[in-house]
């Protein structure tokens, strides 16, 4: 293979399941998933809170949420990772700092960076969902005696969450893929494991192909779950699916 380039590359896929490489890969996948899952939960929560706040009929609340979104989404995630690892822990009291250092500070810094960054992006997705709902829904809710908070909780957000499944899927996939950046602050996730196999065996193609394939499988599973959720929770008659617009 590639012999005509004057180089010979011998494929040796068995490096992937030779020990301890397989254990590294499995631990890498588990760390990636744990990182993605915890970050996703926090990011979605932040997204719902700030996304709703950005549409609130009260200016100071909107301003706070806008500040959060613009501040966190406009700085590259890599910079946030360094900030949360090298910068943020330094302002905590020594006792808390030491506790974090002894309990996986790399992992929790990555969780903070990814969830806060993606939270700001989820907030925009959710704002778009809320603003797609006609104003009359809010007015109807208010006139039926619900408070603003109740109208949001019972009417606006449940509908918005359904509207935003496709863009939210997109964001979730981005979040999963962005966990690979955590290797820059020493989190031994999937890309880290693949690079490690590469340095030990000099089999770059095999190691990186395995990482690429695993990411692909993970992302495809997430999007199929999200498609299932979209179909399962669809409100009949609310959104036209697969039908042609009548003009």
């Amino acid at each position, binding site marked *: 293979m590639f012999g*005509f*380039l*004057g*180089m010979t590359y011998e494929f040796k896929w068995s490096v992937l399941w030779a020990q301890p490489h397989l254990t590294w890969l499995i631990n890498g996948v588990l760390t990636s998933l744990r990182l993605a899952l915890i970050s996703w939960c926090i990011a979605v929560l932040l997204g719902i809170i700030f996304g709703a706040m950005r549409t609130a009929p009260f200016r100071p609340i909107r301003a706070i949420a806008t500040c959060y979104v613009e501040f966190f989404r406009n700085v590259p995630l890599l910079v946030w990772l360094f900030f949360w*690892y*090298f910068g943020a*822990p*330094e302002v905590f009291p020594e006792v808390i*700092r*030491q506790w974090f*250092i002894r309990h996986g*500070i*790399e992992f929790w810094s990555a969780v903070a960076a990814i969830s806060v960054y993606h939270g700001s992006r989820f907030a925009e997705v959710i704002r778009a969902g809320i603003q797609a709902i006609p104003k009359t829904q809010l007015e109807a809710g208010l006139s039926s005696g619900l408070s603003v908070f109740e109208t949001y909780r019972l009417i606006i957000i449940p509908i918005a969450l359904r509207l935003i499944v496709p863009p939210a899927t997109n964001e979730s996939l981005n979040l999963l893929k962005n966990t690979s950046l955590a*290797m*820059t*602050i*020493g989190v*031994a996730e999937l890309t*880290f494991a693949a*690079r*490690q196999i590469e*340095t*030990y065996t000099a089999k770059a193609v095999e190691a990186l192909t395995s990482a690429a394939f695993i990411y692909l499988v993970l992302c495809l599973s997430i999007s199929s779950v999200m498609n299932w959720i979209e179909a399962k929770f669809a409100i009949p008659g609310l959104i036209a699916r697969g039908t042609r617009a009548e003009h």
Partner: protein
Amino acid sequence: MKRFGLALLLTLLVLGLAGNAFAQGATLEKIKNSGVFTVGVRNGSPPFSFINKQNERAGFSNDLAALVHKGIEEKVGKQIKMEMKESSPATRIPLLTSMSVDLITETMTDTRARRDSIDFSLTFFMTGADFIVKKGSPIKGAKDIAGKRIGTQQGSTNERILREKYSKAELVTLPDQAAAFMALQQGKLDAYCNDAIQLWGLKYKSATPDQWEVVGDWISYEPYGMAMRKNDSDFRAAVNNALMEAIEGGEYFKLYEKWFGPKSDVPYPMSQAFKTFLLSQVVPK
């Protein structure tokens, strides 16, 4: 798209042919014919090979390469131009095999695995992995690192040794020296492990050199050699002869004094063992 594919294929073919046109061996011939001797160096590995504050290439390895250059000029009997090219751990072997450079100097550790694909000169520097710690740290060497947070550089030989031989230490693998030292300064690491000479460099370059201590007695052995294409014994002999003459004639020790002496940026006294080893690499005339 089709045309792009064709262009790509043609480029690859041309590259492949060009690669084959220069068969292995006969580096001296190539240098003589082209009048150029190309050396692979580094931008950022002080004090071995780096770009200094005056924006010039400098370093211990670069100066040794200049001595080799002189030796080659004598050998081929004409003036040769020396060119320097940036190389890195990832590119240095391909640079050699593709004929882009004739010699790699910088900080390359001679290993048996690497000898499968390239040849090395005699050893011109010797170091080993140690630990840098805050002054007064309980860590005095590899025996004290169990359960401690030890920093290493991604993809380094040191990381591998720690993982294999000292599995009780908690390894924190960071992308580069700057990140690792920052984490050490912030107390996120108990020690940082790298080649001793690089740790001494870190210590002297830090804002507070007195606060840091380099401890341990080499958990690894890293002999630096100059790398060249395999199976070219004429060229290899020319490089080795130049190094032997430099050791025998004392130029080597002058350069050592310049880069590692008490007045240098990275004072690193030469051990008696290393001096004996260097001198015994010089075979009789």
